[in-house]
């Protein structure tokens, strides 16, 4: 370094000499002096280990000042780069610090490239200049390279902005000196920096080593683990502080001691001998939790990790044990184990329900919980217990709140809710939850069965409510008395008005209130019995209410009787219900009693009076829609004689009276309070229920319960009772009507049977009469005639006797006989009726009739030249025959008219004469023997027979016989009951006249 400076000083001297040639001595001296000063300062700065940037700045400042050049710079090559950057500058270049040029670029780049100084007389006109206006003011430029060996490491340059100034060689040489100085400084700085770096690295390495050693030492000395080195003789070779502390000794006391001395029991000794303290360890590291007995008598739980040590010859040299204190962990584990054991006991005890649950399901639960919710373990294991579904819906918001609380706080405030058990009952519980897992949220919960508490609460509440209710709403009275029977307290006081006496209140004497001879007497007796120590009950009819009273002795704490406690309950409704039941039952029994509905209804009415009504009436609805009384019973027999005439009629008045309305509309009429409406007569109805009697959908009438004197008011229960009775009464009426109809039908059938019997008898009679006539005729006429004929034939064969009267011609006799037979036959039954039909038979008959009787017959016929059914033809024929016979016998006329016609429905026949006629009465009395037979014949065919006659006005007989035979119901007989009084269907009107 001194050599460099000396070299620099020599060059300075030379530069000073060359400059002095063109200038005056003083200037040369000054310049030289300045150069030297500059060099000196630079050197000093170098020696002072000035920082490189300052040094470079000093160099360029000094150089510019010495050469009197305003602008200057020092470029340094960035190591390993192809650019240089300005590191120090004066003048214009001050602003360019940090500015870079590339290798070969501009003046500096050229100098870097060439490694030679370079001057430019006018940079602004120099072809190699860098572009840009900043260089427009630069004219003369000079630059020299900074060299490190042969390598260019930078460029030092100066420039004039003053046009016309030039750098001379001397200036360039001085510049070169400065450049060498700068290079030197640079070199120096580089070397220095390297020395500094190496020194720092060494220092760091030392520090590192130091720290490592320190750490190791600390590790060993103060390690949390105890370190225990045991030699082959199983004696302690080394322990660290920690190990000594763990065993409650000092390291010095331990050294040489046997580790076995610190083992707690035989078990540990055996375990150590075979394990971590073995002389010939099994190899590798042995690890074990070991319980030591500390020097101070305490217990150390430690985790021992022991490894065998070997010397250079691979010989066992001892054991290194790392001992970690796990007493705390062990204790924590013990605590945990105990806690868990407690938890298990709790879980098993089933005092409280314990669950773990996620936001949906109960994951685990003990039996207590399962019992609470009424589920089985199978449900739980199948994941079927969804706590939300089990929770009563009104508590869901509490669950939601609890979950939110769990998410924020990890626990939730215990709250009460109710589970819906699978059997439908509710289980009140208190539940507390704590988070077990945060995500997904799982909680452990404790569930306390509150049902017992709830029940107790409920029971208490009920008991209080009951007392309250009793006090306010007792359907009767309760009271306390003292031994003088003075009332001291009452409950249910608002019932007072209907109770024994309106003065029944605190402070009154019962003996004053109750008349010993009145209906309250049993109550007084009961109190007296209670004072003697026996409880007593009695029934009390008060007004129209019934009370059941009970009186008990009231005793103090020493069991002395100090008064009575009494209670009375209004049992009117029960009594009435019982009576109603009895009434309904008795009514039912009555129905089975008699088929005579008058009797039945009267009995029903009698049952109702006086228990339920002052009078009871049953009315029937007749065919004109008016009500007619069927039964009536009055509480006062005198009224029954004149059955409550005024009120009853009023109630039954058509269209307005409730009885009539009920019967006509089929709707119950319920008039609980009628006072004033019907006036103030003593018998006037005050409360009425009139219920329609309905059977098989028909309103038959009405049943009425009427209160007129007793002051009773009917209520809805009574309506139901009367309706029940009405149902039964309706059945009675309906049954009776049905029975009557059936009786009527039976009577009609009987009458028909009798008529038929009579007819049969008559037919037999007629038959017998005809046979008799026929027999007589055969015997008398034909017999006589045949006998005569026989006689005459015999005589003729014998020959005529002389003088005898000539006998009748036998042939003539035979002809007469044939004629008689024909006539007889025709009268019995004309063959023509069968062979030829009705009209030919009638024509023949009429001809014979006229011939025999002399009565002329005008026979008009229309549409009858055809055959009809045989019975039709026979009947029509017989009617005409009978009618004409009657005419000939009775009418006293010479002419008779017969009409015979048919249409699509019927065969009609009418026989009319203008003769004497007869009264209907005579006809009904059977004046004509043939007419009833005719009627029967016509009726059999379903036809009609009308006889229209009056004395002196002739007779007209009309028969119409249906062609299609009788309708079925006519054959069946007239069993259809004639409707009677009620529900009679009206025939459709057919006589509508416009």
């Amino acid at each position, binding site marked *: 370094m001194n050599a460099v400076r000396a070299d620099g000083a020599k060059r300075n001297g030379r530069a000073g000499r060359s400059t002095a040639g063109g200038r005056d001595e003083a200037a040369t001296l000054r310049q030289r002096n300045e150069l030297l000063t500059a060099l000196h300062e630079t050197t000093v700065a170098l020696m002072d280990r000035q920082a490189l940037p300052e040094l470079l700045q000093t160099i360029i400042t000094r150089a510019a000042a010495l050469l009197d050049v305003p602008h200057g710079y020092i470029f340094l090559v960035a190591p390993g780069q192809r650019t240089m950057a300005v590191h120090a500058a004066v003048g214009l270049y001050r602003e360019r610090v940090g500015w870079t040029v590339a290798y070969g670029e501009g003046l500096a780049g050229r100098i870097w490239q060439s490694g030679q100084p370079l001057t430019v007389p006018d940079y602004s006109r120099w072809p190699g200049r860098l572009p840009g206006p900043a260089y427009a003011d630069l004219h003369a430029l000079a630059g020299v390279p900074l060299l490190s060996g042969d390598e260019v490491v930078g460029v030092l340059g100066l420039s004039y902005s003053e046009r016309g100034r030039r750098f001379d060689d001397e200036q360039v040489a001085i510049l070169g000196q400065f450049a060498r100085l700068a290079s030197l400084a640079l070199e120096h700085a580089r070397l220095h920096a390297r020395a500094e770096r190496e020194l720092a690295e060494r220092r760091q390495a030392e520090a590192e080593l130091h720290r490592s050693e320190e750490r190791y030492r600390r590790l060993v000395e103060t390690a949390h683990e105890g370190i225990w080195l045991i030699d082959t003789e199983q004696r302690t070779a080394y322990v660290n502080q920690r190990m000594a502390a763990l065993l409650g000794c000092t390291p010095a006391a331990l050294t040489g001691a046997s580790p076995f001395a610190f083992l707690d029991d035989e078990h540990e000794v055996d375990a150590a001998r075979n394990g971590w303290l073995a002389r010939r360890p099994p190899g590798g590291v042995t690890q074990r939790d070991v319980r030591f007995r500390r020097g101070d008598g305490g217990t150390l739980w430690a985790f021992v990790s022991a490894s065998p040590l070997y010397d250079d010859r691979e010989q066992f040299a001892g054991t290194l044990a790392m001992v970690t204190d796990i007493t705390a962990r062990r204790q924590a584990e013990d605590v945990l184990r105990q806690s868990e054991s407690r938890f298990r006991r709790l879980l098993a005890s089933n005092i409280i329900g314990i669950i773990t649950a996620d936001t949906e399901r109960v994951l685990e639960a003990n039996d207590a919980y399962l019992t609470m919710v009424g589920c089985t373990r199978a449900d739980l294991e199948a994941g079927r217990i969804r706590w939300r579904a089990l929770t009563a819906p009104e508590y869901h918001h509490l669950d939601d709140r609890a979950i939110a609380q769990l998410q924020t706080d990890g626990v939730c405030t215990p709250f009460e809710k109710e589970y819906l058990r699978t059997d439908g009952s509710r289980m009140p519980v208190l539940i507390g939850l704590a988070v077990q897992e945060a995500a997904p949220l799982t909680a452990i919960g404790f569930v306390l069965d509150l049902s017992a508490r709830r029940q107790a609460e409920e029971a208490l509440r009920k008991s209080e409510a009951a007392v309250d209710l009793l006090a306010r709403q007792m359907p009767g009275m309760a009271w306390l008395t003292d031994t003088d029977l003075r009332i001291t307290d009452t409950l249910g006081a608002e019932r007072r008005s209907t109770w024994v006496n309106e003065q029944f209140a605190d402070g009154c004497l019962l003996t004053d209130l109750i008349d010993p001879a009145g209906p309250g007497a049993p109550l007084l007796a009961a109190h007296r019995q209670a004072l003697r120590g026996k409880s007593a009950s009695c029934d009390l009819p008060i007004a129209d209410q019934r009370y059941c009273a009970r009186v008990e002795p009231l005793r103090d704490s020493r069991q002395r009787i100090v008064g009575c406690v009494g209670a009375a309950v209004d049992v009117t409704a029960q009594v009435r219900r019982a009576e109603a039941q009895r009434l309904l039952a008795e009514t039912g029994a009555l129905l089975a009693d008699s088929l005579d509905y008058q009797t039945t209804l009267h009995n029903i009415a009698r049952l109702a009076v006086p228990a339920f009504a002052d009078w009871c009436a049953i009315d029937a609805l007749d065919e004109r829609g008016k009500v007619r009384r069927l039964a009536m019973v009055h509480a006062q027999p005198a009224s029954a004689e004149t059955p409550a005439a005024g009120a009853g009629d009023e109630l039954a008045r058509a269209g307005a009276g409730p009885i009539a309305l009920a019967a006509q509309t089929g709707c119950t009429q319920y008039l609980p309070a009628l006072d004033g409406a019907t006036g103030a007569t003593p018998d006037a109805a005050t409360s009425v229920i009139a219920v329609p009697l309905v059977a098989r959908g028909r309103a038959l009438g009405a049943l009425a319960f009427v209160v007129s004197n007793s002051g009773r008011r009917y209520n809805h229960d009574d309506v139901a009772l009367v309706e029940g009775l009405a149902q039964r009464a309706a059945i009675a009426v309906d049954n009776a009507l049905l029975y009557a109809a059936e009786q009527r039908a039976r009577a009609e059938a009987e009458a028909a049977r009798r008529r038929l019997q009579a007819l049969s008898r008559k037919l037999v009679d007629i038959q017998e009469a005809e046979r008799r006539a026929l027999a007589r005729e055969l015997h008398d006429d034909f017999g006589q005639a045949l006998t005569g004929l026989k006689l005459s034939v015999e005589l003729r064969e014998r020959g005529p006797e002389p003088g005898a009267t000539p006998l009748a011609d036998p042939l003539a006799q*035979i*002809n007469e006989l*044939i*004629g008689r037979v*024909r006539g007889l036959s025709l009268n019995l039954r*004309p*063959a*023509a009726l069968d*062979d*030829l039909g009705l*009209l*030919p*038979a009638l*024509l*023949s008959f009429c*001809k014979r009739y006229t011939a025999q009787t002399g009565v002329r017959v005008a*026979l*008009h*016929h*229309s*549409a*009858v*030249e055809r055959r009809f059914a045989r019975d039709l033809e026979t009947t029509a024929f017989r009617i005409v025959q009978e009618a004409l016979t009657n005419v000939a016998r009775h009418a006293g006329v010479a002419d008779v*008219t017969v*009409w015979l*016609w048919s*249409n699509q*429905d*019927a065969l*009609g026949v*009418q026989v009319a004469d203008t003769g004497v006629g007869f009264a209907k009465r005579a006809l009904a009395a059977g004046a004509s023997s043939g007419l009833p037979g005719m009627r029967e014949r016509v009726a059999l065919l379903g036809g009609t027979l*009308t006889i*229209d006659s009056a004395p002196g*006005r002739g007779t*007209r007989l*009309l028969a*119409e016989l249906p062609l299609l035979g009788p309708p079925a119901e006519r054959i069946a007989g007239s069993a259809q009951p004639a409707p009677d009084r009620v529900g009679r269907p009206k025939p459709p009107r*057919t*006589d*509508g*006249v*416009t």
Partner: protein
Amino acid sequence: MMVTAIVLADDHHFIRHGLRAVLAAEPDFLIAGEAADGIAAVALVERTRPAVLILDLLMPGLNGLEVLRQVRRRSPHTRTVVLSMHMDDAYVVQALRNGALGYVVKDASATELVQAVRAAVRGERYLSPPLSERDLEAYITAATDAPFDRYETLTNREREVLQLTAEGCTSAEAAARLSISPRTAEGHRANVMRKLGLQSQAELIRFALERELLPVKS
């Protein structure tokens, strides 16, 4: 000499015997056969085609009138004389209408039957006394269907009810006027409608107007 073949049909053996005796006396008559019932008679006539069939109207098997109709169809040349117990004109008319040429009552003399057979052979009608053509005509007249005035069939009461109804009375009003019950009046009215074959009140009024039962209003 022309021989007349005759078939006898009668269910009575004695009758047939008698008839045969009567007819055998006539030399030109030949009994071609005898039948005892209607069916046999028809078959015999169809087989033998006799000139004359003497037929009893009342025989078992087939009614005489039906035998007449079948014989007329199956053996048109055979002429039938009916022999009958019936003297009714009705039978005679029926027999003649069904193709008989002669009608002889059974109690007539034997000669009448022979006369009837001979008349039949000649194609002439024969009626044995006391039957007469006049009576038959009278019968036919009487039996002829003659529509009559249905009003005639109405009873007095019915005529009164008809009158009142036509005048505009309801049944009840008519009943009141006639002092009878409404039901009775209604019954009369129904009879009137039925006897007269009327269907409605309008037809009833028209009937009354046509019969001039109602005073014509000026």
